């Protein structure tokens, strides 16, 4: 019987996939909020990788969990900062499109 849930490769693949989705969204999205959502996906892909190695390969299985908790704290701080930057940009430019945020012509 195929057991996906006990194999390291499944988790590594899903982590790589989330990272790829994040890069895809970062390039594709025309607005800053879309890019913020994609950046969260990138961080999640990294977390899944840490947790997979932590469960299957690490001699001390607390390390990966603690690093994942730190990644979550950094992601929360990043979301708060990016939200305030988005609000400041919206107040100055009346837009959050990446195409509009240029003062110099070129």
């Amino acid at each position, binding site marked *: 019987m195929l057991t996906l849930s006990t194999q390291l490769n499944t988790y590594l693949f899903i982590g790589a996939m989330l990272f790829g989705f994040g890069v895809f969204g970062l390039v594709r999205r025309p607005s800053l909020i879309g890019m913020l959502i994609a950046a969260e996906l990138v961080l999640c892909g990294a977390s899944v990788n840490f947790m997979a190695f932590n469960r299957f390969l690490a001699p001390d299985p607390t390390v990966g969990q603690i690093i994942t*908790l730190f990644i979550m704290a950094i*992601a929360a701080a990043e979301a708060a900062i990016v*939200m305030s930057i988005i609000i400041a940009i919206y107040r100055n430019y009346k837009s959050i499109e990446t195409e509009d945020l240029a003062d110099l012509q070129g």
Partner: protein
Amino acid sequence: MNLSISPDIVPIFREGIFFGLLIVTVFGALLATLAKRMTRAILGLVVCFIGIAGLYFFLNSHFVALMQLLIYVGAVAITICFAIMLAQPDEMKMAAKTPALAGPFAILLGGAVTWVLASTAMKATWMAPALKVNEGTVKQVGASLLTTYSMVFELVSIVLLLAILGALVIARSGRDKIEC
């Protein structure tokens, strides 16, 4: 009446639930990156986070799974919701102005990154550890968070404090100009 489940069916149930979680995660990530309306993209992000929390349960880390739900679904997604409500991102109108090559280039880049990472991971041969020092229970995570990693723990709290203060300062600047 006998309600006990036969032991043969338990792994099938487990794999079914795991496969469902994989589908939920990928579907959420697709929705988060492809949806035209930003509120739907947020919903996709939440669905993706819930799927990942389920994967963490399968990885024997119940505490991190709960933290995933609490911090990502509860705090980060709501923060992005506030950003949407305060800045009105109309991606319907934006789509006309974006360069035509952005979509195909994004698919190419994302696909290449996924392919390289996944194929490297599949080809590598990992060595399992000789012995596990502990089981990674919540108690042990808490103990090492407050002994081995206590310095990092304190630094993260300072980072969070600075992030809150910085967010307030950045979002407040320019506000008085409009009112005066």
